[in-house]
Structure formats: structure tokens, C-alpha cells
């Protein structure tokens, strides 16, 4: 019995091994691969999948110039499971594939920070669509860039606006204890205090469904505005429960609120909520509207936060690779050359505005839009009122301008 079984195992192994040697295929075009890393499984996958899909869409739509140069572009999505170990392990896998010239990712700063060490060690360029953590670019790596804004500026932009809302004198700040939510909430709080608002509380919670207990002190403190640094899947539920429990003031949040699903989750309670966004509202930019339509058509679901940024990131990568190929006389560029070309991107007109990278890889001028939810109907999300647009220079840029 046992003997037969192990014979079988050996046989299978032998067949598999021989197969593995035989099956080597020839390719006509030179292949360039672009990888994405984001959580595709687990609770955060709804955002991660949006990143992945947007990159795929961009590659599909925008690889024409590269094809003309004689290169085909393949897309390799990786699942980092929102876990640093998995992200780093994937990163090692990515850097060993010589055909991969760029990475778009990650969703979580906690994964992006260690993984980008691996990319940077190997000159592989990373474009982050979603990591707003200041440390991503403040390390000054030549290979790490982002197309999204920074926590420090976004939080501050929100607070500056909050101070102008009629009747808001006290705020209560909540966050989801992630690097993203807490980061943006801390910067909101700092700026709110600087603006003369009184901060009644600063709380973090990992709770995702039942906010009853968390709401009680909020009701007792009666803040005029609640700022929640987090993603809509958590904050939408919070807002609906807070309203039902009798909270009567305003809500505000970062770009993690920017999803039509927010309207579904929060219902009537979410109407009137303010949020900052780094992606241009589609009503203002036609290209963004086109992107939203294409996305929905291809994937059958609405685009989520960071989708537009991911599309832009992939578009910049494709454009930069083409530029690097041309600079290299039509030959396959090295990773360092691609990284250089990405950093040299100037005035790229993307869905999220014009992007020019500073020396740290931050967009020199990041646009922050302040919007207000207008309807509980998710189909109406794109008609949310645009209340204010702010262009804020990255810290490096600001320092350069002031000196």
C-alpha cells in the first residue's frame, strides 16, 4: 500500500519535473511587466482590488506607445494580504523577475515601508497610489514616488476648512488606529487646535460594526463636528449609528470617505458629511468621468477610493518606460533608468490633476478637494458638492518656495 503510494508520488514528481523543463515558450515581442501589490484577499481587499483593477485598466488602455516601440506589456498583480511579511516576500519575488520594471502599490503604509526597502535596494521604481504616510517619501529614496497627497497636508486642509464651517467650535477626532487613519487624524487635530477649535477628544478604535459604546461619550460631549480618520467601510457605519443614537452635529473625514458606497452605508445620516479628497471629482474633470465609466464597464463594480490614483500611477509608469526606452535608443531600459524617468515626470495630466514629482517623490503640488455628500443615493455620488479646492505644495516644494 505504502510502497505503491510513494511510487505514485515519485512518478508525479518526475513527470512534473520533466514538464517543467520542456515547456519553455518563445515570445515575439520583448515583454515588459508591471506589477501591482495590494491586498486582494482579506477585509481590506475591496480597496486593494480597486488598485489592482485600475492598474490593469490603465495598462490595457495606454500600452499603445510601448507596443509601437516593439514591447508588449504584461500585468502581474500580487496579493500582499495587508501583511508586511507577505509584501516583502512578494517584493523579493518581484525584484528577481528582470522583466518587471515598475511596481504600483501598496495600500497599507505598514506594508509599503518594508517592501519599498527591497525595491529601492534593487533600483526598482515604486509608485504608490494610496500611501499617504509621510515616511514613505521622507526617506528621500530615488525609487519611491507617490501620486496621492500626504497625511500632513490632507489633515491640515480638512481642519482649515472645518474652522470655516458656521457654528463649528468644538471637534471630536476619531481614527481607525491604522497608520493611515491615525496619521491623518493627528494632523487634523494639530491644525484644528492651531485654528482655534477646541478638540474634545482624540480616540482610536478597531471596531468595525458596533459603535454603540464608542458613541456614548460623543453624545455627552456634544461636539459640533466629528472627524473620523478612516475608510468609508468603517466610517459609513459609524455615521449611520451615531445619527441614530442622536448625534446632531457635522461629520468630516479624509479621502477614505470618497466612495459611492459611503452613501449606501451611511444612508440619510451621511448626507451633509464633508470630506477631503485628492482625486478630482468627476464632475470637474471629464477624463475622470470616462475612467469611472470604463472601470464600471470592465469590472462590473464602482471604482473605489485610490482607483483614480492607481490609474494615474500606472499611466505615469507606462509613459516613463516609453521615455526611458527612447532615451536608451530603443533598447530595454534598466530599472534605474525607469526610476529616473518616473522621477523626471513633469506636468503629467492625470485624473487627479497635474503631477510633477519633487526630489522626494511627492507631487510638487497636490490638489485637495473639499466636498460635501449631497444624497443618500450612491448613484448621485458624483454630484457631491465641491466646496473648496486647495493646491498645497509638498514640504520640499514649500521649503524651496519660501527660501
Amino acid at each position: 500500500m505504502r510502497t505503491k503510494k510513494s511510487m505514485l508520488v515519485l512518478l508525479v514528481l518526475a513527470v512534473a519535473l520533466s514538464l517543467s523543463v520542456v515547456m519553455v515558450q518563445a515570445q515575439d515581442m520583448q515583454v515588459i511587466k508591471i506589477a501591482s501589490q495590494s491586498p486582494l484577499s482579506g477585509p481590506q481587499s475591496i480597496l486593494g482590488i480597486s488598485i489592482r483593477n485600475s492598474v490593469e485598466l490603465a495598462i490595457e488602455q495606454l500600452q499603445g506607445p510601448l507596443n509601437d516601440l516593439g514591447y508588449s506589456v504584461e500585468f502581474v498583480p500580487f496579493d500582499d494580504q495587508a501583511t508586511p511579511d507577505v509584501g516583502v516576500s512578494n517584493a523579493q519575488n518581484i525584484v528577481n523577475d528582470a522583466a518587471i520594471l515598475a511596481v504600483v502599490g501598496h495600500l497599507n503604509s505598514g506594508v509599503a515601508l518594508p517592501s519599498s526597502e527591497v525595491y529601492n535596494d534593487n533600483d526598482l521604481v515604486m509608485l504608490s497610489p494610496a500611501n499617504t504616510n509621510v515616511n514613505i517619501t521622507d526617506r528621500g529614496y530615488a525609487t519611491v514616488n507617490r501620486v496621492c497627497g500626504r497625511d500632513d497636508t490632507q489633515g491640515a486642509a480638512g481642519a482649515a476648512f472645518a474652522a470655516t464651517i458656521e457654528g463649528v467650535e468644538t471637534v471630536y477626532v476619531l481614527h481607525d488606529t491604522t497608520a493611515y487613519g491615525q496619521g491623518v487624524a493627528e494632523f487634523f487635530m494639530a491644525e484644528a487646535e492651531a485654528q482655534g477649535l477646541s478638540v474634545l477628544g482624540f480616540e482610536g478604535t478597531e471596531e468595525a460594526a458596533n459603535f454603540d459604546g464608542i458613541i456614548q461619550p460623543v453624545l455627552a460631549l456634544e461636539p459640533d463636528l466629528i472627524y473620523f480618520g478612516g475608510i468609508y467601510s468603517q466610517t459609513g457605519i459609524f455615521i449611520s449609528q451615531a445619527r441614530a443614537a442622536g448625534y446632531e452635529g457635522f461629520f468630516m473625514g479624509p479621502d477614505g470617505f470618497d466612495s459611492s458606497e459611503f452613501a449606501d452605508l451611511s444612508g440619510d445620516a451621511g448626507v451633509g458629511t464633508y470630506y477631503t479628497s485628492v482625486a478630482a471629482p468627476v464632475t470637474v474633470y471629464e477624463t475622470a468621468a470616462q475612467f469611472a465609466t470604463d472601470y464600471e464597464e470592465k469590472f462590473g463594480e464602482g471604482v473605489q477610493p485610490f482607483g483614480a490614483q492607481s490609474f494615474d500611477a500606472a499611466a505615469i509608469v507606462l509613459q516613463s518606460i516609453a521615455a526611458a526606452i527612447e532615451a536608451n535608443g530603443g533598447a530595454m531600459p534598466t530599472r534605474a533608468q525607469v526610476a529616473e524617468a518616473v522621477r523626471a515626470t513633469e506636468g503629467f495630466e492625470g485624473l487627479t490633476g497635474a503631477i510633477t514629482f519633487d526630489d522626494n517623490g511627492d507631487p510638487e503640488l497636490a490638489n485637495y478637494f473639499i466636498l460635501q455628500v449631497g444624497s443618500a443615493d450612491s448613484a448621485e455620488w458624483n454630484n457631491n458638492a465641491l466646496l473648496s479646492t486647495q493646491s498645497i505644495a509638498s514640504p520640499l516644494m514649500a521649503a524651496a518656495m519660501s527660501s
Partner: protein
Amino acid sequence: MTTETLSTRPTTGILDSLRENPTVKRIQSNWIYRYIVFPIGQMLFFIVAAALVMTVIAYAVSIVVPEPRPNINLAAQITKQLPGMIVSGVGIGFVYAMIALGYTLVYGVLKFINFAHSEIFMVGAVVGFEITDRLAASGTIASWNPLILVPFVVISSMLVSGGLAVLIERVAYRPLRGAPRLVPLITAIGLSFFLIDGVRALVAVTRNDFNLTYPTQELDFLKNPIPLTFNGPVVGGTNIGGVTYEQITADGVVLDEWQVESATYSSITVGGVTLGGVPVKANDISSGETGYDMILVEGRDLDEIEDGANIVNIRITVIIIVLSAVIMLVLLNYFVNGTKIGKGIRAVSQDQATAGLMGINVNRMVAITFFLGGAFGGAAGALFGLNVGTVTPYVGFIPGLKAFTAAVLGGIGNITGALLGGLTLGMVEAFLNGTLVYFPALGQRYTDIFAFSVLILILIFRPSGLLGERVDEKV
């Protein structure tokens, strides 16, 4: 009467002399007392006791630290929040208790932790969503009487979750009886992963989304909370459609005039001032635009309402949770202690081998136990879904973990213990969430640490939980 493991009575000891009294004995042997009065009284007692203990502790802390933060009087804040904290503690406490029952029942008969139970709870929540969503899609949901709709949803979830639990037992646990104790633990963990992503695949394919929002949120019956005012009379459910409201600052300047389009919503009267809390769709009289206002107060500004008025909006769903839980627990008590099958389950929980020799169908008893546990998990899931409004395939993990903690806290394997553990944990959490905010160095993020510390403390002094008995076992 009490059994060693699946007992529904705490072993008091102090009341032993009273038990010998013939009158007391006669009352005790009456079925109304045994199956209705006693269990309900017990629940009431647990609720009151847990609330009382936490209140006393909270005020004791406020005496030690009267002003943890500048301008914050802890005692005053506690007074303000007390009703809200108790209600939220009871609400979540019953959910924990119902999930904990699933852990405890299975532990009672098989002596192992069914770690996949949190996913059975999740399946219940998702099934509840599916049913309500189909009803909403067919447009009939509004025509359902809530008194039929809610039980229908809950019972459907119970059936599906119970069936799933039986299936899991049959496929994944029964072949492993007699294997080392940790083996079914790993199987259960594997099953959890399987169920989470299996459900996710299902909803992803059918709905392209995994944030599942209960359409019942839009039903007036479930949506509108019952406002409770302390220090003042309550007027609820006034139709304010067509009334003109003004938003006025404290100085008496009229900022804006709003014509309320239509909305039945609850208004509250405090000291002669009527105020509304729910945002109302309204037309701006001056510009004619439709918009929403957050603070709609007739002729007065919110700031003028005197402090000390406690307004608690008790959501209907919390009341539904408590009512359903009470009914189900009474039924469970009757089933376990009053029926032949219940007796069989208790026998199996005491000694599987002997019970088998006595002609009890062990496998059937185990299957029934799994069904019961699964059904309670499913009911908890549907009720939880109705209460929080949105569920995902990942929703099971945290309540499952907390409920498991509650089961251990009360003494795993003990039905009354699960109830007590759930209520205690819910109450502890609610009070911690409500008060930790005022301590700048701590905050709500430390709620779980304190909750676990309470657990560890209790286990140090009572190593088998509050009501558990010592069980010798090895890994």
C-alpha cells in the same frame, strides 16, 4: 437537578437552607416557575447586577479622579452617559451571550472549542441580509408587518446557520472524535478561512460587493429610535411635515428658514423646548433649493437646552435583540431541562460512553447540540445585522472572539455562564468605552486591554470562570 457541565443553574450554596423549605420546593417544582419565571428573573438579575457593579465602580473612580482632564467632571459625564452606556451594554451583551451559547453548548458535549462558530454567526448575518434584500428587491418589504418580518428573518438565519453547524460537525469534526484535542481546533480554523472566503466568493459573484447593507435600515419601524428623556416628558413620533423651522443663533438672528418637506420623525420635548435630532429633508424658503440641515430646532438654538437633560435614543433593534434573546433563552432552558432530548444532551455531556451504553443516540445528540449552537449563532448574526446595519464576510471574527471570551468568563460549558459572561463583558466594554475617553493617557483604544485584564483577574480567582466547575483536561 444541576449537572456538572451543561447546568443552567449557578451553584449558590448560600441558599441551600432555603431550598429545603417545603413551600419554596413546591414553587420550584411548578413549571411556570422553572421554565419562565426563574430564567427571566435570572436574566433580569444579571442585567441589574452587572449594571450596578459597573456603575458603582465608575462612580468610585470618579471620586478618586474627579477631574481627569481639565474642564471635565467625570461624575457629571458618567451621570449624563449612564443610561446610554447601560443600554448599549445590554444590547451588545445579549449578542455576545447568544454567540457564547454556541461555544458553550458544543464545549459541553464534545469538550472542544468550535473556533468556526464565529463564521456560523457571520453566515447568519449574511443570510439575514440576503432575505431582507430579496424582499426589498421585490418591493414587498415595506408591506410586511415588522412583527412578522423580524421573526421570519431571524428564524431563517437560525435554520441556515444551524444546518451549517450540523454539516460542519458531520464532515469535519465527527471523523476526528478521539483524535488529539488540538486537531479539531486546527480543522475549525481551516473551516473559518474556508467559510469566510466561500461566503465572500458567493456575494462577490452575485452582488459584486461585500459590504452588505440591510435594507431594513430604511424601514421607518426599525429606523426611528425611541427617544427616552430623563428629567423630562417624552413626546415621540410627531409628524412635522409642512412646518416651517428657523435656524436662529443665540443672539436671535434668523440665519435661515427651512420648510420641512415631509418626514415622520421623533421629536423630544425637554423643559418645554421641542427639538429634533434626525436630519430632515427640507426646502430652503429663500432660495427654493432642497437641502439638508443638521440641526433643526423650532425657534431655539441647541446650545440653549439646559445641561443635565439626558436624552437617550434607544433603537428599536436593541429592544428586538433583548426581546428575542430572552424568548430564545427561555426556550433553550426549557429544551435542555424540560424535554427528553435535553436530558439526552445533558447525559452525553456528562459521559459520552455511558450515555451511549444507556441507549442514547450520541451522534444525534451531538448533531442536535450543534444545531442549537448554530441556530443561536445565526440568530445573533441576523439580530446583529439588523442592529448595526452593514455586515461583511469578515464581520464574525471580533464578535466571535469576544463571545468566546464571554463564554470562558462565565465558565465554558455552562449555559447560565454564557449569559452572565456575555452580559458582563458587554457591560464592561460599554462602560470602558464611555469613560476611558476622559483619561488622556488611555482612551478607548485600551478598552480591549482592560476587558482582557478583567478576564485574567477573574480567572486568577476563579480559574474555571464565574460559574464554571473545575474540569480536568489536557491539551
